[in-house]
């Protein structure tokens, strides 16, 4: 081999090595310790000497088909909850893009549901939410988009139950400041994971953990 072909040969080998190195790293990162059950997130309470884990309180909302949705609608299911509004220009489009992935992944699995709370209930009537859901091509039974409360009520509910940011802020679009978390809730209404719904890799981990929870608890 002369000098030039040797250099080319080494360049090709180094490129191949670099690609091999990149593809070896295929184990996806995990949010929570894979050797322990998913954590139960949130402050536990001590009542009459017993420790009670943090649990989502009972609720009653109205979804995009104008049906009443309560905690009973999710009996025996695990669900992913988030907070959004249909005209939110900043993070919600990314959240919807990612939640569609969860919807599609578990479309045929009745043990999994999605609950999206509107933070702009005055504008997001069931009709508006229906148009939004239809445009996204999602099924009501899988993905409930809910309204039917005051803005202050849902802010408080989101903060105390789902531990998410949801508040009035005159500097935010429409005066609504909120976080982009996807909250994984098990069939006992315990929070088992929190994921940034605007980041695809975080939602990869969510989808992974939903499958884990299904394996562990069903």
């Amino acid at each position: 081999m002369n000098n030039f072909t040797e250099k080319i040969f080494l360049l090709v080998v180094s490129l191949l090595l670099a690609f091999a190195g990149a593809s070896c790293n295929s184990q996806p990162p995990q949010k929570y310790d894979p050797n322990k059950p998913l954590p139960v997130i949130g402050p536990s309470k001590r009542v009459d000497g017993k420790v009670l884990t943090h649990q989502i309180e009972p609720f009653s909302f109205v979804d995009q088909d104008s049906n009443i949705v309560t905690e009973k609608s999710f009996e025996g299911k695990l669900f992913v909850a988030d907070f959004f509004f249909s005209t939110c220009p900043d993070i919600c489009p990314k959240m919807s893009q990612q939640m569609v992935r969860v919807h599609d992944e578990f479309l045929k699995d009745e043990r999994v549901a999605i609950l999206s709370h509107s933070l702009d209930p005055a504008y997001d009537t069931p009709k508006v939410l229906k148009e939004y859901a239809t445009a996204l091509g999602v099924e009501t039974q899988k993905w409930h988009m809910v309204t039917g409360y005051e803005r202050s009520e849902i802010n408080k509910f989101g903060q105390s139950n789902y531990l998410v940011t949801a508040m009035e802020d005159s500097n935010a679009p429409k005066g609504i400041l909120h976080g982009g978390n996807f909250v994984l809730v098990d069939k006992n209404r315990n929070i088992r994971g929190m994921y940034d719904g605007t980041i695809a890799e975080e939602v990869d981990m969510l989808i992974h953990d939903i499958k884990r929870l299904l394996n562990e608890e069903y």
Partner: protein
Amino acid sequence: MFAWPILLAGLIFLIYQFGAKGDNSAGAKIYKSHCANCHGDSGEGLRSLYPPLAGADYLKDHEADLACIIRNGVDVDLIINGKTYNQPMPGNQLLSDQEIAILIDHIRNSWGNDYGNVPFSKVKNALDLCAPTSKSGK
């Protein structure tokens, strides 16, 4: 014995390849901060909710409408590649005439779009004539 420097050169070449894919033009920056959230990093849109810009026939012949839609938003149905989109789009009142012109050129000439540049005078003229709350776009 000179294998290591060449190996290193190969790696640097590779890193450069991955790092160099970002578009740092002014149009790309405006697009990223004002449009990409909904219309996607590559103009792909999101199902029937947010229309695609990549390959969108609408961009070809609606220069004036585009300028007004970007500035004032739109709340009427738009037909793009034969499909109706009915979600309202918010306006971008903070973008200057120049920024809107740069943005229009960017979206008309990215992701496979090849619709050519629009003269600034044409964009400026269109913006001067926009209805205050744009109902244009049909």
